[in-house]
């Protein structure tokens, strides 16, 4: 395939952070409306990639396409490819459940199951037979997942209490712990802090910095400062198109495209 220089830049990977997920000429249509327009974008391993842009720019649609979450949307059609470790996620006979195990997702609003804190962690691994029978293995998985989500110390004495008793920020970290329990390689986060107060937001952001050591993360956010704070790479979308992508520190100090400049400085969008 012939790639333009810009495309090469947006897919460029370095040896330390090879590309894990790669959108190639990827488009999404809702009926007649094209929501994502022939996007080329790579998500480097163990890095945080932020996807920013005004409402309706296609950023959430793209993110949800990465773990086939859009499959349920009626009238939705895709074109192009999304490669996960080189395999096209949109080829025929892909095991979608397996895809979602390896590419987890955290949503805008914390959505714990109406169960205990421990059950929230164990539910996914149990139905997927990913946890050995017996109390010990379960306890170990609950603790390690909650520790990785920086929630263990706050909930260790009430693991059997309902998850609904937690604060919004704690619920969101529980959802992250639940995602981690499935041992994914990639974590997609769709506006994970938009329903949280500044303190809980700061905790989730610290957590993202921690998780980055082990997981590849893609985060969609409306909060530009958050993108600047937490990400290594930023991609700016407008009207379904990828306008600019590059190292976050470059994009927020000296962006190359005027549209990016205008958006991040608040001149439009």
């Amino acid at each position, binding site marked *: 395939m012939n790639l333009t220089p810009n495309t090469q830049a947006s897919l460029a990977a370095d040896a330390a952070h090879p590309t894990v997920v790669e959108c190639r000429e990827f488009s999404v249509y809702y009926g007649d409306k094209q929501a994502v327009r022939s996007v080329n974008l790579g998500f480097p391993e163990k890095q945080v990639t932020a996807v920013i842009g005004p409402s309706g720019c296609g950023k959430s649609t793209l993110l949800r396409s990465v773990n086939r979450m859009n499959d349920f949307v009626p009238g939705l059609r895709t074109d192009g490819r999304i490669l996960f470790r080189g395999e096209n996620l949109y080829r025929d006979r892909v095991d979608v459940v397996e895809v979602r195990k390896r590419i987890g997702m955290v949503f805008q609003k914390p959505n714990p199951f109406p169960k205990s804190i421990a059950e929230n962690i164990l539910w996914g691994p149990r139905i997927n037979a990913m946890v050995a029978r017996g109390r010990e293995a379960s306890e170990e998985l609950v603790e390690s997942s909650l520790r990785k989500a920086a929630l263990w110390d706050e909930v260790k004495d009430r693991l059997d209490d309902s998850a609904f008793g937690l604060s919004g920020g704690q619920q969101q970290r529980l959802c992250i712990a639940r995602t981690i329990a499935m041992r994914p390689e990639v974590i997609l986060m769709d506006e994970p802090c938009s329903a949280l107060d500044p303190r809980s937001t700061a905790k989730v952001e610290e957590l993202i910095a921690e998780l980055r050591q082990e997981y590849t993360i893609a985060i969609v956010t409306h909060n530009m400062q958050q993108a600047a704070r937490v990400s290594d790479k930023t991609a700016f979308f407008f009207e379904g198109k990828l306008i600019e992508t590059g190292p976050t520190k470059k994009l*927020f*100090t000296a962006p190359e495209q005027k549209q990016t400049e205008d958006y991040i*400085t*608040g001149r439009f969008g």
Partner: protein
Amino acid sequence: MRTIEAQLNVIKDQLLSVSTQVEQLFGDAVRAVDTLDAVLARKTIESDHRIDREEVEVEESCLQVLATQQPVANDLRFLVGVLKVNNDLERVGDLGVNIAERALFLSQLPRVDAPFDFREMAEKTRRMLKGCLDSLIQRDIELAKRVLAADDEVDAINREMYARVYKAIEADPARVQSYMQYLSVSRHLERIADYCTNIAEDVIYMVTGKIERHKPEIAVPQQARWT
């Protein structure tokens, strides 16, 4: 208009006011040396207080926007540039005061001919100062690059100064005090020219996002030089 835009416009005006006063102070200081006018020298020294006050105001305005607006990209580069330019302008003002103080001294000493082409050096420095301030206002990086190139000439005159002063003192040891004052003037002019190059580099950063400091290889076409 966005709030930040209005705030940045205020800062632009504030910096413009500081730069106008610094240019004025510099011109007065040079004239005071040229004419050995003690009254003008004293007035020049006095005028620095207002620059000092306004410099603090510019800094406070910048800090306020940084704290409340979380600026990025162009806006961020502008503010960082203003903070640095503001600081450099204040230092140029101080050096202008030093030059005026030399004028005051010289006016009380027996007259001697300046041991170097004071007017030429002062004029080159003045053009650098005007050039860097114009490049700032017009966001003109070509002009900023010409300022960078012009610095070598001022440096060269300053280097020659030592030899010339040495000779002048040898020839007329009784006038050593006066010659030492001129040596100081030359060094202050050279320092001012250095600050002008700092400002020009900051202009290049503000406009392009590229940090051009410590890069002697910046290409300036020969015909683009103004001398």
